[in-house]
């Protein structure tokens, strides 16, 4: 069955695709730089070298007021870095209000527990944003989910694997607030009428249907039209 797309539908698909593709594009640039650094250091990297590069890479994006990115960085494959088994080189943006109380947030480093012996250390390789791209080898969108480990907020995390010499040395990624995405995309969805944007697990990202809250799972319905948004893994559903 072919569906003729109305201009509103096409424009919405384009908006979703370009919003996420531009972040994935940025992530890919970071991925390339980390790969190049690994190359120039013959595949052996230190925490300091990684931190210096990643901070330099993500700082610009995190400082730009119009940027949707509220957190970004590189998370190393356990055992890859020569001087720390676990490592997160992750920075939080100006728009990220996590842990600052009533202060105006500034760009800052995420302090993460990296001591694997600490009793409640969290093995990040079990988390979706790590697990899925590690298995699939391709970029992945995690969420919407409540990121209680990092931002305490309703978040989307975009991650891509970084490979060197045929093995994964870590993931590179960015966090977005779901409410920023809603603000950005809702006008386009509204132009269609009743429509819903879902992630690959059919979790609602944005919907104009009041019966479809963000974060709920939309069970497949008869007669629905599912339109992929580029290669973002997101789909636009008309029902």
């Amino acid at each position, binding site marked *: 069955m072919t569906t003729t797309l109305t201009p509103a539908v096409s424009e919405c698909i384009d908006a979703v695709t370009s919003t996420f593709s531009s972040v994935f594009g940025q992530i890919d640039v970071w991925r390339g730089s980390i790969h190049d650094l690994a190359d120039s250091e013959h595949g052996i990297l230190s925490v300091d070298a990684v931190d210096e590069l990643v901070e330099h890479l993500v700082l610009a994006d995190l400082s730009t007021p119009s940027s949707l990115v509220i957190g970004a960085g590189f998370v190393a494959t356990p055992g890859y870095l020569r001087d720390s088994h676990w490592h997160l080189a992750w920075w939080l943006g100006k*728009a990220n*209000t996590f842990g600052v109380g*009533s202060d105006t947030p500034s760009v800052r480093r995420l*302090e993460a527990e990296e001591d694997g012996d600490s*009793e*409640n250390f969290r093995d990040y390789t079990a988390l979706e944003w790590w697990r899925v791209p590690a298995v699939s080898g391709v970029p992945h969108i995690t969420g919407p989910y*409540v990121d*209680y480990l990092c931002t305490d*907020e309703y978040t989307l995390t975009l991650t891509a694997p970084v490979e060197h010499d045929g093995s994964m040395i870590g993931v590179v990624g960015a966090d977005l607030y779901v409410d920023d995405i809603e603000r950005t995309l809702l006008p386009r969805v509204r132009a269609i009428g009743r429509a819903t944007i879902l992630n690959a697990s059919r979790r609602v990202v944005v919907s104009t249907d009041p019966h479809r809250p963000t974060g709920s799972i939309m069970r497949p319905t008869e007669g629905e039209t599912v339109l992929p948004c580029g290669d973002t893994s997101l789909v636009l559903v008309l029902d």
Partner: protein
Amino acid sequence: MLRLCHVSLRQDEMPQSIRSTSAARAAVFAPLAGGGRAELVTQRLTDAIELGLLTHGEKLPSEAEMARQFGVATVTAREALEALREKGLVETKRGRDGGSFVLSEGARAAGITRRVTRLSRVELRDMGVYYSAIAAMAAELAADRATPDDVSHLHATIDAVDVSVETSARRGEGTFRLEVAALSQSARLVREELRLQSEFAPMLWLCLREPEQRERSRQAHRDVVSAIEAFDGDLARRLTTAHIASAIEWLLDAKAELENRGDTA
């Protein structure tokens, strides 16, 4: 994108009832610095200790270092440490090897027992009711919003707990409820779950001292996951409420026993 300011109370927008009452007005505009900040720092550290992120014997950073890390004044960090001492979570030693150290679960347990004897039955029951409202609603929403992947993650969370060890069961209780809360997709419910855990969890789950109760708790978690898996929000909610109610009943029994012992002593 810059986030919109959440609260913008301007005088000319204040409701008449508030504007006319000077005491209420003063409270609204009480300075946030100092008290408010210290509470935030206290809360964060309490969460970390209750959740086991900071463990027994661990030395906290010095006042000055803590102030730098949290981005608060030294006096605020001092205030927070004072509050943690009062809660019986840390002790401060003077001298060369001095500093503030996280107390053992044993030392904290004695503090919890004292708290249970001090609180009235009404207060303890009310604690259970309020916690149920949050946890049970989270479970109900989770049943509607969890993917099969989320469900296997919940199973893994339960399997990771060693019920033969009390601390493992205690931590597992917290982790399981936090994971369920996260599946509700509500950031507010998650934050409230975390807050209530740090306030009540050691008391509420006092029953986990008994191996038999730890087994029961594990079974209760499995039943909730089955309900979530079956998209049965109603059942997930009722099971969660019942589990919390049984923990409160155990606690009230324990309290009565403590009081009887106290009377005869």
